[in-house]
């Protein structure tokens, strides 16, 4: 199986809200795929469609070579899911929840369960109602990671974890990748995405806006140039692909599209360069560009979830 997740043209509406509006998402076998987007972009809705919890209005969705709605039960035995807000049964202990979810999926690896509990420093004897937000997430993560499944679907799984636990989480995802499992990881934590993800898809207003490896994505974006020049600055502002030009005496700062980089640098050397600092776009800039653009009028802002689910 080449593509555990293959989504094309997925549409999902809640009343008049168009939560997903032609989403494409392809996750290849064995990769850790980052799923990014601002709050309300439709990440959780897409994941719920993949899990057969919501029914797609239009588009094609294939999950592990099956139909996520029709074949939900058989497919779910082969995947594990961690929601962004794990809610536990108040009267069950964490250990009971881990075993229960594992058994429903068809069993979990007791050795790995013990290892996970230890590395996440989770006390399995506490009752659900007494866990903190971070510890509830750990219960969900241990239950998912201890299962022998091909596919992990994680919806902002590390919300509420401290930095130490974040590191533990990255270790386990790395291990899952080495075991040949596929991971769909929705996340807001850029360091996490940068450390773990082979490829990412950025979603906005229910539609994928970019997809590729981080290197590919960087390539599509601007490099920041900060240079001290020997002569008067002219002819730069007119160059196509040069943005945000600021001139301060002999010093220039600007951003330039990757395709126009060569032309811009030629122009600088013609003037004469005394010093030059160039910065590839950081991941933050990459994402902020997508996060900050004003939303298209067609899509509502709270499209990430069906109305009112996580009040």
């Amino acid at each position: 199986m080449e593509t555990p997740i293959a989504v094309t043209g997925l549409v999902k509406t809640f009343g008049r809200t168009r939560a997903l509006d032609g989403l494409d998402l392809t996750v290849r076998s064995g990769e850790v795929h980052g799923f990014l987007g601002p709050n309300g972009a439709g990440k959780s809705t897409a994941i719920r469609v993949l899990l057969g919890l919501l029914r797609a209005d239009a588009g094609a969705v294939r999950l592990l070579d099956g139909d996520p709605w029709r074949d939900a039960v058989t497919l779910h035995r082969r995947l594990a899911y961690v929601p962004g807000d794990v809610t536990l049964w108040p009267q069950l202990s964490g250990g009971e929840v881990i075993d229960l979810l594992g058994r429903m999926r068809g069993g979990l690896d007791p050795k790995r369960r013990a290892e996970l509990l230890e590395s996440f420093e989770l006390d399995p004897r506490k009752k659900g109602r007494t866990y903190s937000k971070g510890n509830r997430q750990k219960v969900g993560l241990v239950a998912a990671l201890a299962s022998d499944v091909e596919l992990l679907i994680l919806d902002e799984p590390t919300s509420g974890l401290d930095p130490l636990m974040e590191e533990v989480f990255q270790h386990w995802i790395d291990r899952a990748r080495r075991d040949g499992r596929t991971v769909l990881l929705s996340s807001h934590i850029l360091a996490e995405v940068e450390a773990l993800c082979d490829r990412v898809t950025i979603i906005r207003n229910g539609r994928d806006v970019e997809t590729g490896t981080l290197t590919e994505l960087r390539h599509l974006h601007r490099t920041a140039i900060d240079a001290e020049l020997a002569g008067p600055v002219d002819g730069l502002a007119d160059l196509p692909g040069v943005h945000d030009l600021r001139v301060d005496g002999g010093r220039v700062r600007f951003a330039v599209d990757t395709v126009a980089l060569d032309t811009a640098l030629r122009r600088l050397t013609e003037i004469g360069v005394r010093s030059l600092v160039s910065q590839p776009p950081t991941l933050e800039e990459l994402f902020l560009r997508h996060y900050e653009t004003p939303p298209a009028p067609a899509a509502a802002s709270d499209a990430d979830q069906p109305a009112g689910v996580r009040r």
Partner: protein
Amino acid sequence: MSTLTGTGHLARLILRRDRIVLPLWVLLLTVLPVSYAGSFLALFPTAAERAAYADGTARNPSVVALLGPVYGDSIGALTAQRGGFLQVIVGLAALLTVIRHTRTEEEAGRRELLGATVLGRHAGLTAALLVTYAASLVLGLLTAAGLAAAGLPVAGSLAYGLSAALVGVVFATVGGLAAQLTQTAAGARGIAVGVLGVAFALRLVGDTSGHGWPSWLSPLGWAPRIRAYAGERWWVLALPVALTVLLAVVTYPVSVRRDLGAGVLPSRPGPARAGRGLSGPFGLAWRLHRGQLLGWSVGFGLLGLVVGGAAESAGRSVAGNAALEQVMARLGGTSGLAEAYLGASLGVAGLAAAGYGVQAALRMRSEEAAGRVEPVLAAGVHRSAWLASHLVFALLGPVVALALTGLAAGLTYGLSVGDVPGELPRMLGAGLAQVPAVWVLAGLAVLLYGLLPRFAATAWAVLASAVLLGQLGAVLELSQWLLDLSPFTHTPQVLRAGWSVTPLLVLTALAGVLCAAGVAAFRRRDTPVG
């Protein structure tokens, strides 16, 4: 900063959040007694008719058990008695309101959010209590005004209104105390409703057994003993006031001693590994429902014991009244009244069991709204299996409860008439005869959940309508088609009239259709729906 800082803000927040529910129950519980007065005026225009009705009522232990004693035969006295059961509902509404704005808030973590602002330690509890006290008093005064406007004596109307208001005040405080004890709102509700149940049972036993003293132990027993419209005994009003002060004196120190989010009753650690039984949706449902099943079973068993024990003396109380004895003879001997009493009590048990069925079915809704369904459905559990795991409890839980009521009533009634082997199966059968009507209500809750999850709670409104139809039907002389809307109208009076199987089969089939439609709708719809 005083411990009460911010109480006003919180009280306004509560009023804002309850701007529909609170006026609704206040208004409903005000309108009903006034409507009773109106219908009595229309039904019994002459003193002789009123006297006959009052006499029959006073001597009918099933009426006294449910409503309390009647003092006198004026329209006012009859209205005050008829409104007796409404006071239980006033108490229930009051305690639920307080718990909803204290322990529920704390459990959901919203109190923490507010606690970080400028709020005194006692502000939350005080605001919830004050709002509920105020609502109870408004209810009482509106009722008094309504009754007086209907032409009843002002003093009696005020006494009746205040008695209802103070029932609300007492049980609001009970709710406030219960909210300090447990960590969960469900636990607090269980304790407070349990106290209300004990208060009702004490009044029931006191009023029907001939020994009045148990009624004096119950706030629900004090209300009728104010004797509205029958030579008001105003000093009785001091009892609920004193109890309220006492409860508050206990509650406030308790609320200070515990931490936010914690209860006084400790929560113990659980097992590190799940037991063998906890491996699928049914194991999970058992863990979620077993406490409720146990609680309802105990309650229903006790109800059966009390009702069965009181029935025989109820039959004997007719002795000496020649007219009633004649009527009873026509109905099949003095045992006729005991049977009627048992039948009516089992009817009440049926309504309560429907409450259990609806509550168990709506557990699915709260699981979904809390986000606890997704992980289960995403773990390879079929939607139908998940729903069925809860349906088992919604359908079979009430069967267990009603069977226990029947068996317990059969035991105590059988002992008192010296025929346990005969009465045990008869009462068991009479208890179980309520089951099909209960299933219809539970099935309706399942259908609503599957089809319109956001409105699933309207199943409670349907149940309330069935209760009101049963209560008001006779008084308001409603037309038969309206009464026929309630499934309980079709439940055969097994003890009095023997079994008739057809309505039971029809009700069961209807319940089956409702459940099947609910399952089908749930399988087709999106989850979660917020």
